[in-house]
C-alpha cells in the first residue's frame, strides 16, 4: 500500500552551528518563514542532541521518511561531517522518495546533481577560513 506523503519535517540543532549558537526559536522562525515562502507544509522540528557529532535524532527520522515529503534543515552546516554520513543520508532520503532542503541557504536537494553542489560547498567551506577582523588587521 502506498503511503501518502505529507509535509516537511523541520530539523534544528541544540548545539553550535558552524561555531555559533543559534537559538532554537530563531532556527524555527527561519524554517517557518522559508516553508511559507516556498508553500511547503512545515511539520514541527525534531531537535538534534547537543553532544558533539551526535546525529541520533536525524538517524531516528529515517523510519518516518516514507510518510514525509522530506527534511527541512536550518542550514547545510548541520549535515553530518563525513562524506559517508552524508551519503547515507542522501541514500535514505532518495530511496524513500524524499527531498532535503536548507532554509538559511535556500538550497534544495532532490537528485544527484543537487548532491554534487552540496558536496562542492562542503569541500570548499572546509578549505576556507574566517576572515580577519577589519581591513588592515
Amino acid at each position, binding site marked *: 500500500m502506498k503511503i501518502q506523503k505529507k509535509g516537511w519535517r523541520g530539523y534544528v540543532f541544540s548545539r553550535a552551528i558552524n561555531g555559533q549558537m543559534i537559538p532554537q526559536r530563531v532556527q524555527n522562525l527561519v524554517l517557518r518563514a522559508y516553508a511559507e515562502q516556498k508553500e511547503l507544509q512545515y511539520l514541527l522540528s525534531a531537535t538534534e542532541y547537543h553532544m558533539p557529532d551526535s546525529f541520533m535524532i536525524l538517524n531516528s527520522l529515517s523510519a518516518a521518511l516514507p510518510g514525509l515529503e522530506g527534511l527541512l534543515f536550518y*542550514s*547545510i552546516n548541520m549535515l553530518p561531517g563525513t*562524506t559517508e554520513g552524508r551519503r547515507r543520508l542522501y541514500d535514505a532520503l532518495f530511496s524513500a522518495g524524499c527531498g532535503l532542503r*536548507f532554509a*538559511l*541557504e535556500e*538550497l534544495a536537494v532532490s537528485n544527484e546533481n543537487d548532491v554534487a*553542489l552540496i*558536496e*562542492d*560547498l562542503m*569541500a*570548499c*567551506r572546509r*578549505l*576556507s*577560513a*574566517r*576572515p*580577519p577582523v*577589519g*581591513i*588592515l588587521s
Partner: protein
Amino acid sequence: MPPKTKAVPVPGFFDAEESIFIDSFLEHGYAIVPLAGREALDAARKRMYARALELLGRKGSKCPALETFFDHTERFVPVEKLNAFRLGMIEHLNGDALLRPAMYRMARRHIEWAVGNEVAMQRTINLSIQLPKDASSLLPLHSDVWSGNSPYELVLWLPLVDCFKTKSMYILPRPDSEKIFREFSAYKNFDAEKLFQAVKPKLVWLDVPYGRALLFSHSLLHGNRVNDESTTRWTFNVRLKGLFTPYGVKELGESFLPATIRPATRIGFGAVSLEK
C-alpha cells in the same frame, strides 16, 4: 607599512598586459574593463526591457523604444512605485539562469586577472535604478568591509546604460581609502555625509559606458549621490571572490556559490575524502 603594489615579486609568470592590469589594480583598487561578447549583454538588456513592460502593463503602441525606456525610466515609473518595480525586476533577473554565467563570461578575462580562476560568485544579481533627481535610492559613502563583508571580495558593476558624472558612482582610490582606515579613530564620530565632505576632493567619479564594466574592491570607500544628469541609471552588480579565500558575513552556500572549480581541486577533494 603600505602594501607592496607590484604584480610580480618574481617576474615572468604574468604576461605583459596582465602585469600592467595587476599593477594598476593594486595601485587604484579598481579598473574599468571592456566586456567580451557584447551580444549577451544586449540580449540581457532586451529581456529586462520585455519584463519591465510586462510589469508596467504596457503593450503595443504604449511601449517606448528600448533606448528611450532605459534612458528615461522616470517617464514610465513614478518615484513612489520605483522600489516595487525594482523588486519585481530583481525577481525576474534572478530567475534568469543565463544571466550569472553571462556576466561572468563577459568579464572573465579581467576577473581571472584580478581574482583568480577558481571563483565564488554571489548567488543573486543586484539591480540599481537611479531616476534623475531621485534621492530615495542613495548609497552613502561606505566600505562594505565595515559591515562584515570579506575584504577578499570584488564587485563587478555592469551598467545597462552609459554611466557618467553623478549618474555613476564614486570611489576613493586605494591609497586614500587605506589612509582613512589607518586614521579611522579621527573619523569614528562622523556621519556618512561629514565623511563624504572630508574626502570629497579625492573622490573619483567613474565614467563607465555601456559595454564596459567596473571591477572594484568593495573594501574601498564608495557610494553615489543624487543623479543630477537628465537620464536614468541602470546597473547590475555582483560580488566575486577567490573560492578559497576567507568569507565574511556573506557565506559560501548562503550568499555565494562556486562558479569555477578546477580538476586538480576536485581530485584533491576526492583524495582528502578517502583519508581515514
